[in-house]
């Protein structure tokens, strides 16, 4: 069964610190790895995504690191702010004409002042 395993389940970070969320996958056919941010009562919003031909992608304070051989990828949030407090989902997609996103179970991030 296609799975994406995400950790930790919850994370508390001081304002200004670095938040790190990790994901691992099994299906080597996956070729697109997005991260979504979800605030309470809202739908998930696409935050940043990476394809396996690069090892890192940075957009502002958000960076994805990708390790193809280990089948792992992670989200780093630099200079974390209270406004970053949300649930973050990693996902993966691809292979055999499949367009369904397979999601991790989410990480609830709380950034405290």
């Amino acid at each position, binding site marked *: 069964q296609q799975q994406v395993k995400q950790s930790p389940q919850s994370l508390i970070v001081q304002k200004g610190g670095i938040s790190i969320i990790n994901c691992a996958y099994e299906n080597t056919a996956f070729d697109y790895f*997005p991260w979504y941010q979800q605030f309470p009562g809202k*739908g998930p919003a696409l935050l940043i995504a990476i394809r396996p031909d690069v090892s890192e992608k940075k957009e502002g304070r958000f960076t994805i690191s990708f390790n193809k051989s280990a089948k792992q990828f992670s989200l780093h949030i630099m200079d974390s702010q209270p406004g970053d407090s949300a649930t973050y*989902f990693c996902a993966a997609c691809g292979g055999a004409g499949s367009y369904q996103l397979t*999601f991790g179970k989410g990480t609830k991030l709380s950034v405290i002042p």
Partner: protein
Amino acid sequence: GAGVSQSPSNKVTEKGKDVELRCDPISGHTALYWYRQSLGQGLEFLIYFQGNSAPDKSGLPSDRFSAERTGGSVSTLTIQRTQQEDSAVYLCASSLAGPKSVYEQYFGPGTRLTVT
């Protein structure tokens, strides 16, 4: 421009009743997806539309669930004879077609369904 919209935002129904959930995708997005988010769980894929066709229905949990899309735009997810385990947030997403674009899925706010 407008994002994906869904209605109703909340729906409370009695066990055994049928419900219809509506999704309006982003204008110009030919691909449309339904997902379900249960309490404490991640998002679970239900069905994918390309235009009015559904080439992937693999995530529909039972034959009580069906979906259609008309005019390549609005989609309706129907749940017949609702059960308490159907209680969840139902999310719709849309994307452009094409091999590079189809993965960039944009979600609506969801419909929270409660079956009593």
